[in-house]
């Protein structure tokens, strides 16, 4: 049995692969930022007095967490034009990634916030801080610090999920690979190569997040 592999024709296309990798990282970072905003806002609503708000957030979290991302991105891709909103595949992908990641971020951050003793809030209010400041400085920041590892693995997962954006023809690494595959018919070599690139990207993400946590959370806790 002779396995006939030719990585040359794939590696020749490295400028396209590099651009695709950057696009993937861009999608991932934009998705993470949106997910963080949704996550924090969602938790704020869950702690608010609005009963309707809490129900909406909980329904959103359950709905997103119990359906596949592929179906979510299709739904958004076809639903928005019907509402008269035309977004590019890239913006649609970011929106889908942000909503998906946001639902998981709400779950994770909520867990961290619930672990903060209520006495902290009371002490903050007793010191005369505004409720918004109490939430931001006394609840949110320590909560984020304690759930940081879970958030990071969720965000690395989000980075890998960007590959599914190829299904709506958004420009990223997997769609670049599909084009190279179409030109060269070196299917296995292409996907093997970009699998290694994804491995490197997720390793890079973890390294960056570790460095970031040393800067953001560099304060004594006790």
């Amino acid at each position, binding site marked *: *049995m002779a396995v006939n592999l030719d990585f040359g024709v794939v590696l020749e296309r490295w400028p396209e692969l590099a651009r695709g990798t950057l696009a993937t990282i861009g999608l991932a970072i934009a998705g993470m930022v949106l997910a963080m905003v949704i996550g924090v806002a969602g938790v704020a609503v869950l702690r608010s007095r609005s009963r309707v708000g809490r129900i909406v957030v909980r329904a959103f979290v359950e709905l997103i967490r*119990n*359906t596949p991302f592929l179906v979510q991105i299709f739904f958004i891709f076809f639903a928005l034009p*019907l509402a008269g909103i035309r977004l590019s595949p890239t913006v649609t992908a970011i929106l889908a990634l942000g909503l998906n990641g946001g639902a998981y971020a709400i779950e994770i951050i909520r867990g961290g916030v619930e672990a903060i003793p209520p006495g902290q809030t009371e002490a903050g209010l007793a010191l005369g801080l505004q409720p918004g400041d109490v939430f931001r400085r006394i609840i949110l920041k320590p909560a984020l610090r304690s759930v940081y590892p879970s958030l990071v693995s969720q965000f690395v997962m989000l980075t*890998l999920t960007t590959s599914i954006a190829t299904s709506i023809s958004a420009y990223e690494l997997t769609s670049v690979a599909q084009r190279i595959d179409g030109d060269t018919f070196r299917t296995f070599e292409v996907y093997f190569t970009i*699998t290694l690139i*994804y491995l490197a990207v997720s390793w890079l993400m973890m390294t960056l997040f570790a460095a970031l946590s040393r800067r953001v959370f560099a304060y004594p806790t006790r």
Partner: protein
Amino acid sequence: MIGPQELAFMGKGLLWTLALTAMGFAGGILFGFLVALARVSPIRWLSALARAWIAVFQGTPLLMQLFVVYFGLPLLGLNPPAWVAVAAALTAHASAFLGEIWRGAIQSVPKGQSEAAHALGLRYRARMMDVVVPQALRLSLPATIGFLVQLIKGTSLAAIVGFIELARAGQIVSNQTFKPLLVFGLVGLMYFMLCWPLSLWGKAMERRLAIGQTR
């Protein structure tokens, strides 16, 4: 509108989703168990191999894993039917994730348990199989159910390699009927009905275990 014919087609897709999940999960349980045991094994190269296996599958997209297995098997001279290739990829994926979940559970069984078994004269095999693993399995159940939900959702990616399961069936029906919102809403609902009860079950079990541990 979508008629009985389209619904039957989507029902067939749903059955394939269930079949792929069952195959991936069964294979994942079998190989994941081996991965977990290798990962906690005192033999160094074996645990390094398991660590690498887990790192690769957790660090790359499931979609790529499907592509590489799907297009790689023919290179090895194997030409299995599409469902076998997809099931093989899902099995490998599940083995890494379940292996890591169970590794965590095995290591969270108090060390004293293993030491006591050792003091009673049990060998490694008996120590693991009769003392540590049964306790670890109980601890790992919520996370295992959580992964099962991930796996059900993950089978949808087989649609991208052209395999007709629920998501792909929905795509086809949507293209035929020009009712994307209705069709994808329905497809989403079907996945939700599969996953939600499992999620609730996992959460309830997690709460029960948390109560058990505070005692």
